[in-house]
């Protein structure tokens, strides 16, 4: 592990009922780095995000996760968060009776109204309109995702794992998203940006490609985009997902799909 490494994932294997969802993942993310993780639906990206965060049911069978040199593989979700690691879920949870201002504040070490308003503005939400809104099902999917991004930004984590942050956000432009992630990086937050859209990779410092529950390529964004466009996207266009998922009788796809949609 180099001196610039904040996160190091070493030979990580995770089994879920019916399938191995991670199969020897190796990955590093540097300090202040925006690292894009590209892959087709079903490649294991969300499983890796949940495993990094320590979510229930994602205990590694093998391998380890090092965060700033500390082995966090056995730590609880809360302990990881308190070390500065957080996750924005692909489909964020809804909370009855919890208003956005309080939701943002509860992840902040020193909550301040200025920071909360800044975070809301950074995701193109009017603080005046949204800070009093309940983070419940009355919000659109896009509004909820933007509040989730604002909460992560307000928290100033050391590593933000963002699972498909660009999907379903209609109002924020691509440039808004780029600006937000760059601001996070400027504040010292490393970003692991999970996406299946190769154009999102452009803004990263480093990119990795995930396939079949493992990292198969790491390099510059251009290199990884090129590999993805030539070798992966045709499979996605043809099958809509990983090619070998069908060969395995669809079990892997089913398990991953259940996890992604798990409420």
């Amino acid at each position, binding site marked *: 592990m180099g001196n610039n490494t904040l996160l190091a994932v070493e030979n990580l294997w995770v089994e879920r009922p019916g399938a191995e969802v991670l199969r020897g993942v190796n990955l590093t993310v540097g300090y202040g780095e925006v690292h894009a993780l590209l892959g087709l639906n079903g490649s294991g990206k969300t499983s890796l995000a949940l495993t990094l*965060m320590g*979510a*229930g049911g994602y205990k590694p069978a093998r391998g380890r996760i090092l965060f700033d040199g500390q082995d966090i593989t056995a730590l*609880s*979700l*809360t302990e990881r*968060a*308190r070390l500065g690691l*957080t*996750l924005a*879920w692909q489909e*964020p*949870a*809804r*909370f*009855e*009776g*919890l208003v956005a201002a309080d939701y943002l504040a*509860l*992840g902040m070490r020193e909550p301040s109204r200025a920071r909360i308003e800044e975070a809301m503005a950074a995701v193109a939400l009017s603080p005046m309109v949204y800070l009093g809104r309940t983070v419940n099902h009355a919000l659109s999917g896009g509004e909820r995702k933007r509040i989730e991004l604002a*909460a992560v930004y307000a*928290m100033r984590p050391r590593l933000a794992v963002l699972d498909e942050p660009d999907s379903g956000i209609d109002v924020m432009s691509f440039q808004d998203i780029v600006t937000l992630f760059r601001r996070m990086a400027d504040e010292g937050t490393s970003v692991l940006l999970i996406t299946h859209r190769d154009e999102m990779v452009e803004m990263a410092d480093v990119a990795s490609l995930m396939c079949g529950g493992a990292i198969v390529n790491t390099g510059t964004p251009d290199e990884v985009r090129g590999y993805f466009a030539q070798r992966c996207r045709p499979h996605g266009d043809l099958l809509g997902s990983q090619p070998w998922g069908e060969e395995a009788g669809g079990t892997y796809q089913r398990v991953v799909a259940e996890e992604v949609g*798990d*409420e």
Partner: protein
Amino acid sequence: MSSRDPAWAHEFEAMMRAYEEAGGKSDILKTPRVASAVVSGNRVLATNLVEGVSIETEESESGVRASITVAPGTKVDYPVHLCFGMIPSEGVQEIVSGFEIGEGAEVGFLVHCTFPNAVDIKHVMDARIHVGPGATMRYSETHYHSSHGGIQVLPTTHAQVDEGGWLESEFSLTHGRVGRLDVRFEVDVAARGVVELTTKAYGLAEAEIKVNEGVRLNGEGARGLTKTRVAVRDRATSEIYTTAEGNAPGAVGHMDCTEIVRGAAVARNVPVVVVRNERARVTHEAAIGSVNRKEMETLMARGLDEDEAVDIIVRGMLG
């Protein structure tokens, strides 16, 4: 006991402190523009009336009878504030009340029931509500009790909502402990009338919570919603029985129940749907069990521990 009596002043101040603990703002009870009544045990300590609102009270052996009338067409600017409670640790308080909301009137009620020293108290409320044609009544009742859990809260309400009338009722017992809570609410709704019943309760230790609500949508286009939010932990129990009847064309009813269970607590929900007209529709949804895992993990990913996360979720649900 008159307002010049030192005993009255002492009791009134004690009730005001309890009222504040229950979430009320005592200054509002001294504001002439706000209709209000303060009842301690079986004594009416204070009332204030505004134009179009009448509050008649009569003290009984164990409580108070109150008749509250809002004249037809009256739009009451500020909610009527009612404060019921007892300062002693033991006793019975029985509030028998009638609400008559005249045609086209609009009024809100903020009711605080406070028993800050309760060890062995029985609080009985028996209410009759009549919401006249096109009238609107919003009623919010919040309870605050001591941590002893030695209190029985037994509110019963029978309501009639006339054509085009609107009734919202929210009952909340989420602070302090209750020994036994038995909420009964029956309402008949006429054509194009609307009723929304919300009940929120938090049961700790050996608390017994029972909610029994019946909504009869009798008129064409009548609408009804029951929303129940209960959290129980330790060895507490909750039983929620809701019945919605769609008895007329275009009647629409929905029952929505969420109960969170922790420790050795037990929760039960029994929704009953009755439809007597082919153009009526009644639905129900219920979620009973542990805290939603994804909600809890989302909060833990912000640095909260499990207990803190559960507390945020439960408090949010109970408002």
